[in-house]
């Protein structure tokens, strides 16, 4: 450990210190060594830290101070919907009757939890226009895979075993093709046209009798609404394929349009985006899946049903793809999403989408003078700029992102989507005030000026953070993935 290195918890540890307070041994003591064959008894204890409670709190408090969340400041990370995480949600999720219940308790003893889940399922069906929703999937990627597995089961149930291909746009998120692979499909790319939308001619070219599904997000990852969605649905459906909706971008259209009405057969939602589940530094999320009547028999089991006044889990689903997760999914995240939906109602959710779109368009128009806007049209909840003008000055998008850190902002998503050179993908969300956006616009313009006048300032950024740029090459070449004494 060098002088300026921040200590690891292991380096704060000292033999003999205690941070725990365990229940007593109030039953007669026994000799465990006599109870177990010797080969099962560990010879060396795992080297966990030994630290007092105060020092533990100081360690983690200091770590939190070395981190940045939505409560710290503006976080316009495109495709991630970094909106405010309401505090009532956290309180509700921590109620004993929700946080301390076991998934295998008798169903009669968890009817309140099941009622909430059922109500959430119903609300998500209405918001997406789908016939049935399963909450079970753990995150967006798992939702994608779950829905693809259902589509596969649907085709197979029709005796159709030759639909081996899933079509994904070149602008798609990486999880789309990866989920297709995990579900046993081959992915085929469909190109975008010069308007940033799926190229219908190319779609016609790649679609065929081997098409299992087209995966699409609408608005797409450029933040543009796929206006030809009905034609696309027709092309895919006529070929016998299904239409899958990646719901990561639902924040743009709540109350305005629904994937179900656009012709989608299956959708996943990210409760940790649109519905305020906190990102938690990378998770946990929740990725419910909604489907049409036709795909319903294939939903993962169990499904939650209401019979009279009682809720029950139905495990008897002969055509189900099976379980995708133990128990019933990430229940704690459902509570947050449910509390949010109940807080907003139909009116509030629609306003959220309206304001998310206004904020994004405002930001885009304010920035387009200094940064290239490859697709000059109204955007939805997010938009993508290109840093190619700055690149010609020797300043890369990565540099711009790092310079934003000096101004106290979390940078936008960079180098995604892949079909835009030096991409800067921005999603302000509806929970940001105009003053916040104006401050950010000011900083972005300032950086554009710096890129022209003193490029090193940007190229060498960040200057103000607790650490400088990291040597990622060495990290990957000679990986150190754990602490060793």
């Amino acid at each position, binding site marked *: 450990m060098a002088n300026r290195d921040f200590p690891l918890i292991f380096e704060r540890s000292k033999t003999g210190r205690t941070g725990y307070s365990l229940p007593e041994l109030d039953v007669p003591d026994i000799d465990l060594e006599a109870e177990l064959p010797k080969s099962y008894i560990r010879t060396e204890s795992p080297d966990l830290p030994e630290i007092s409670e105060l020092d533990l709190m100081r*360690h983690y408090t200091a770590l939190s101070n070395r981190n940045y969340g939505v409560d710290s400041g503006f976080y316009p990370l495109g495709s991630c919907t970094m909106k405010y995480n309401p505090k009532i949600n956290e309180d509700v999720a921590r109620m004993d009757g929700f946080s301390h219940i076991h998934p295998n308790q*008798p169903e009669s003893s968890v009817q309140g939890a099941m009622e909430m889940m059922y109500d959430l399922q119903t609300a998500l069906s209405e918001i997406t226009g789908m016939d049935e929703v399963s909450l079970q999937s753990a995150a967006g990627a798992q939702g994608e895979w779950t829905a693809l597995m259902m589509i596969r089961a649907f085709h197979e149930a029709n005796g159709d075993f030759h639909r081996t291909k899933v079509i994904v746009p070149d602008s798609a998120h990486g999880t789309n093709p990866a989920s297709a692979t995990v579900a046993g499909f081959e992915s085929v790319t469909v190109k975008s046209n010069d308007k940033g939308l799926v190229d219908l001619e190319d779609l016609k070219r790649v679609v065929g009798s081997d098409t299992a599904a087209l995966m699409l997000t609408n608005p797409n990852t450029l933040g543009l*609404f796929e206006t030809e969605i009905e034609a696309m649905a027709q092309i895919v459906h006529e070929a016998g394929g299904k239409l899958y909706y990646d719901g990561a971008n639902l924040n743009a259209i709540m109350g305005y349009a629904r994937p179900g009405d656009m012709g989608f057969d299956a959708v996943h939602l990210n409760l940790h985006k649109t519905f305020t589940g906190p990102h938690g530094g990378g998770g946990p999320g929740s990725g419910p899946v909604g489907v049409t009547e036709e795909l319903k028999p294939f939903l993962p089991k169990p499904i939650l049903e209401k019979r009279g006044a009682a809720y029950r889990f139905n495990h008897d689903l002969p055509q189900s793809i099976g379980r995708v997760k133990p128990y019933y999914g990430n229940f704690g995240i459902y509570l947050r999403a449910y509390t949010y939906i109940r807080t907003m109602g139909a009116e509030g959710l629609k306003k959220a989408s309206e304001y998310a779109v206004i904020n994004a368009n405002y930001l885009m128009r304010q920035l387009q003078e200094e940064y290239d806007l490859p697709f000059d049209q109204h955007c939805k909840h997010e938009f993508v700029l290109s840093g190619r003008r700055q690149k010609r000055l020797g300043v890369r998008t990565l540099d711009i992102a790092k310079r934003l850190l000096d101004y106290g902002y979390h940078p936008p998503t960079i180098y995604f989507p892949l079909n835009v050179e030096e991409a800067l993908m921005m999603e302000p969300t509806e929970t940001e*005030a105009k003053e916040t956006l104006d401050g950010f616009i000011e900083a972005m313009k300032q950086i554009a000026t710096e890129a022209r006048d003193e490029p090193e300032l940007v190229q060498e950024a960040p200057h103000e953070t607790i650490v400088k740029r990291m040597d990622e090459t060495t990290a990957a070449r000679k990986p150190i993935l754990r602490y060793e004494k």
Partner: protein
Amino acid sequence: MEFRYLPMTEEDKQAMLASIGVKDSEELFSDIPSNVRLNRPMDLKKPANEVDLKKELAQLANKNANLKQYTSFLGAGVYDHFIPSVVDHVISRSEFYTAYTPYQPEISQGELQAIFEFQTMICELTGMDVANSSMYDGGTALAEAVNLSAAQTKRKKILVSTAVHPQYRMVIETYAKGPNLEIVYIDTKEGKTDVEQLKTALDEETASVVIQYPNFLGQLEPMEEVQQLLENQKKTMLITSSNPLALGYLTPPAAFGADIVVGDTQVFGIPAQFGGPHCGYFATTKKLMRKVPGRLVGQTTDEDGVRGFVLTLQAREQHIRRDKATSNICSNQALNALASAVAMSSIGKHGLKKMAALNMKKARYAMKKLEESGLSTVHNGAFFNEFIIQLDKPVAEINEQLLKKGIIGGYDLAKDYPDMNGHMLIAVTENRSMKEINQFVKELRDIHG
């Protein structure tokens, strides 16, 4: 209606629309074809204020029998353990819970370091070289391990013990459909994986053997024998699913030659919360380091030589590799990994051993008391904190009766094992007092007759 999360005033709105150059927000939505527009308000419950909503949801919560009010002997993969108060205080810091994945290391050192520490703790517990930053849960971690073993060995056959958590097995089956794997089940004998049957099934086609240790029925598997069997099939991988608390006392799977060790860290600082979110862990050998699914945090230095942490070996992951990625996982369970790291730090090296021992001692006391009261236990092999008793009535029926007495009874094994009618899997954690155990034994005996 006012919405406290929406700061846009009418004045802001007009100014912004003017600057965009549109007359109203409708214009911004004009690209949505009218055919697909929703021309009615969504049919949802009315917006609720904070006071009423909290009241309503508290009532809903109170409809559930919770583990704080009831005495629970239910485990089967999810346990009622001591959660140090510090855990919730740490994970409630919004710099942690409102952050995204740490893609910008300069402002994410806190999260990155906490996860690096978590990875280290998992390596310590399992004895493995490398651990990732988390998986969704123990079940999907196991399924990903299975798929990895098939990809790595280029074989399709997987031998899975029926003493693996039944729901984990179901998840394996679903994941196995993608790469078309063949799952072959190995039965149990006296509550443990039948080594003879395993020996017969094991061959050149076998990608991996999947064992839970301690197993779902509570028993410790014959790990040494399994290890010996695999000596003859060097390419076949050994995958174990392990309760990490048990590893505070038990020999780690690495010592028995495991290639991949997975499980769930719910036992460390994560409430049961109806089954999720929990936190899967995934640990393996150096050899498989570049095949690990999910995010990995690595140590490096910044331009000034100061130690720091970054997400690393990202070439494995979906955002770089797309359809060639080793897994599709993106978001994981970072906040729960943090919770578990805090709990493990708090419990510490000696606390961990003590906590594991408390579980074993209290479970043995409960077993003895039940036997003394005339109830029969089923297996007599070594176990951690769970064991089975056999009853003359359906377990579901007995559990409904116990509930009335303020007790959440054990797991009904008949649900998953057709030959186990009346078999109840009982978990006893450090949280159960002698008094509670005695009460449970008394009530159970009264109900059972």
